[in-house]
């Protein structure tokens, strides 16, 4: 199975789990199309009250573990009031992203022993232009001896993401909109 197909399978399972929690879900790709980073962010940025989850399978790392990443610190640029520069769109959401990341990572660690306990910082290109709480979930690894093991992880990953996002909802609802003009 190709990595892109496996990731799409994870995404479809995550959608089902999230919908079961009452969330509306939109996938940034339906098949083997490959939208650009900015196209994917644009889809998320066009919605209100969104959280963004990008899924990956790595070539390294301890097999059977899952890591959550949030964007590393970068300063929000001074801009016209109410406007967020596209390439720094994630900056006002960093703290919310960290909270979401820790909640999802906590759920994943319960399912997949050996995974970190908290989300890690990384300069993930996909997260930079996303104006919403955003995390990257990376599964280790494509080099696992039995590829079916990776496919079997899908349900656990989907459920962990859904539970983490559900736990994040009241925090998100209670927080002021980052970057908004008072």
């Amino acid at each position: 199975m190709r990595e892109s197909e496996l990731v799409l399978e994870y995404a479809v399972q995550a959608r089902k789990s999230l919908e079961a929690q009452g969330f509306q879900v939109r996938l940034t790709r339906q098949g083997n199309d490959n939208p650009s980073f900015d196209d994917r962010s644009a889809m998320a940025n066009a919605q209100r009250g969104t959280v963004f989850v990008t899924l990956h399978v790595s070539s390294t790392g301890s097999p059977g573990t899952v890591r959550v990443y949030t964007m590393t610190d970068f300063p929000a640029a001074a801009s016209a009031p109410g406007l967020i520069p596209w390439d720094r769109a994630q900056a006002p959401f960093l703290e919310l992203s960290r909270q979401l990341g820790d909640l999802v990572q906590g759920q994943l660690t319960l399912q997949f022993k050996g995974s970190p306990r908290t989300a890690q910082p990384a300069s993930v290109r996909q997260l930079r232009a996303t104006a919403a709480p955003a995390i990257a979930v990376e599964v280790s690894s494509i080099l696992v001896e039995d590829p079916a093991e990776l496919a079997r992880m899908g349900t656990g990953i989907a459920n962990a993401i859904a539970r983490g996002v559900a736990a994040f909802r009241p925090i998100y609802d209670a927080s002021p909109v980052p970057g908004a003009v008072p």
Partner: protein
Amino acid sequence: MTPRWRRLVLGGLAALVVAAAIYFPILKRRVQRAARLEQQSEEQARRELTLAAPVNPGQPRVKTTLFWASSNEDGSLAATNVELPLSNDPVLRAKQVLNTLLAGPVDTELRTLPPDAVLLEFYLLPDGTGIADFSEALAASIPSGIQSEQLAADSIARTLEANVPQVQRLKILIHGQEMETLAGHLDLTGTFVVNTKPTQAPGRLPLTPLAQATPSPTSNAPSAAGKERR
């Protein structure tokens, strides 16, 4: 053609097909191996051409801290201290430590950068931005994934932080070009924060305190080098 000859010809053809089926994978492996060797020798030749100027053997050896992957396999870095006759010139010094980093640790499993990657050039701008220009192999040969790509950038940034305090920020180029990502994940359009401490003269570098200031290698949290936008 008599039936006997037809059988002989068909039998011969079948034998050829079987022989080809056996030989083809062997031939494919040989071609792939030859291609790899050719690529490695090209990279080796380029590495020899682009290596920093030979270090003056009379240069005093100083404690040098290099960051490779931790043997804990937890995605963190571990500091390794060696003594090298480093130049006082920050650009030469940066080339020396990065070439040593590229050469890799004794345990090759702990490499953070591909063995065939080459540092083509290193520039230091007056504002403290170090520009490291690597060969295509850095992007092409690194295992794809957020963890491995971040670890590569962290090992470069932290090795520079520990040994070349004049470098405040790091910009990574691939063959002279700005890339959007390293291998599909890590953002290379900005600069990585290397060192926020004030610059000091190379002859009086407090190398040990800088190295000690880095997080413990046994820490479970990989120290993602901070990143800032231009």
